[in-house]
């Protein structure tokens, strides 16, 4: 690890921290426009975070240190992945040991921390939300792991940087059926993990239909600001990883400043496009009934399995 790669990591972190809430704001704007509303400005999530950070902090009287620590864990795990993942460049810090499975599980630590915090509040909605979130998490995990297996097959390596670098060098890998099936499965996983429609409605105000919102119902003030920031960072990271697995166009191969600028612009454009597509998809789709969710996630799982089988067949 040298100074240049540390600098690159800092650039990625700054992009994810600043860009995450803006991405969330953009998706809300697209959604409101399509629904015939004017909608809040793109910077609204940042304004909310700034406002919440100044407010008083209240915590449930029964809650323990878990409730206090969870937002920090969420932000810290997202920040770790933002530094290490191949988002802007293929030369982030610790590039040789950035394992795909490790990256995913670091992100999942954040989800588990939030679920534990929701249980810690000892409220009915918190427990319900935690139960639902962990159920979905348990169903997502097999699909995710098998999709990673399919993506790692051409290289015999689960090194995330190597997988993205291989895609950017050999475009034919990107069009291979195994890779495409794994990415289809990845889409289902991202929608479930970041709590978007049709898995969870992020703008619901009805507690009984909440999944992710029910987890954070008791948070207020600076804690809620941290949770909002952490969630938007995670959304940006998932979408950033996805676009770089689909089309690693423009990603900086080295830590050269010019290449970094190109990588920064390319990543921003790609994530904005995918974010708009997701927002449009969300307008046109309805939330699935909770008991129908296993069908969707099993569908993601079977696509990943087909990806692995195809990869094995094509060898």
């Amino acid at each position: 690890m040298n100074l240049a790669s540390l600098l690159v990591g800092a650039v990625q972190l700054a992009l994810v921290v600043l860009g995450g809430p803006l991405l969330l704001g953009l998706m809300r704007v697209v959604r409101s426009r399509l629904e015939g509303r004017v909608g809040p400005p793109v910077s609204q999530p940042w304004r909310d975070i700034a406002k919440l950070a100044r407010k008083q902090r209240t915590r449930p009287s029964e809650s323990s240190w878990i409730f206090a620590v969870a937002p920090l864990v969420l932000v810290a795990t997202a920040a770790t992945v933002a530094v290490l993942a191949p988002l802007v460049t293929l030369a982030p810090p610790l590039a040789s040991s950035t394992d795909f499975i490790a990256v995913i599980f670091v992100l999942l630590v954040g989800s588990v921390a939030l679920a534990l915090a929701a249980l810690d509040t000892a409220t009915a909605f918190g427990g319900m939300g935690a139960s639902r979130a962990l159920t979905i998490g348990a169903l997502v995990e097999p699909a995710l792991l098998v999709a990673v297996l399919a993506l790692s097959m051409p290289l015999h390596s689960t090194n995330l940087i190597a997988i993205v670098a291989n895609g950017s060098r050999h475009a034919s890998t990107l069009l291979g059926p195994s890779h495409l099936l794994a990415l289809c499965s990845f889409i289902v996983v991202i929608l479930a993990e970041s709590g978007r429609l049709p898995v969870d409605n992020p703008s619901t105000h009805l507690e009984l239909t909440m999944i992710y919102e029910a987890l954070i119902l008791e948070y207020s003030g600076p804690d809620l600001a941290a949770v909002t920031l952490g969630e938007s960072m995670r959304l940006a990271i998932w979408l950033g990883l996805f676009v770089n697995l689909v089309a690693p166009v423009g990603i900086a191969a080295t830590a050269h400043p010019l290449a970094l600028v190109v990588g920064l612009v390319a990543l921003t454009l790609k994530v904005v496009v995918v974010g708009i597509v997701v927002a449009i998809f969300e307008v046109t789709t309805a939330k699935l009934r909770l008991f129908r969710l296993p069908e969707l996630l099993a569908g993601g799982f079977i696509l990943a399995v087909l990806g692995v089988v195809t990869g094995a067949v094509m060898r």
Partner: protein
Amino acid sequence: MSAFANSLASAAVVVTVGAVVVLWRHRLRSIVAALSVQGVALAATAALLGIHEHDRGLLAVAGLVLLVKAAVVPGLLARVVAANPGARESDPLVNVPASLVVAGLLTLGAFVAARPIVALVGGPTGRLVPLGLATVLIGFFAMVARRRAMSQVVGLLLVDNGIALVAFLVTSGVPVIVEFGSTLDVLFGVVVLRVLLARLSAAGFSDLDQLRSLHD
């Protein structure tokens, strides 16, 4: 990986994914649409092989497959569905997540079982045989695990499409007359089944489990 091998593999994968979608979706309309997409992918497989081998006969077979399996047969079934557009496979014998897991296991089983064939045929075509075999097995499973007469007919057609895919891949080109004969058989079968389905739904049955006795 050559462009030919990649596109052939993609077409074969779409055939298998079509079979999985039949197990995945509840709405009969989506199931018939998946069958149609599968027909297109099957025709694309034949056309790709035909172009690669410079075989005019195989291109004619591709045209025939496109006409019958992507247009005529799904069209006939779609007309039955159109009589009852909201029809769903609401309560299959094996629920959807379980049947998808079974489909995954069947695919793995096909991969293992097809090893001797893959070793025998070899090359970019032979190694795709497991996908055709998986389609056949998933089709059989759809026939067993579904209640609706329409789903079972679609399962039968999945089996047929899987066999056709294996035939294309193994023999690198079926003679036109053989493919013509088998496609015509399928067409006649579907016409008869369509009449039967229409009579069944006119009589108020679509769930085969409700049929208890034979009447004149």
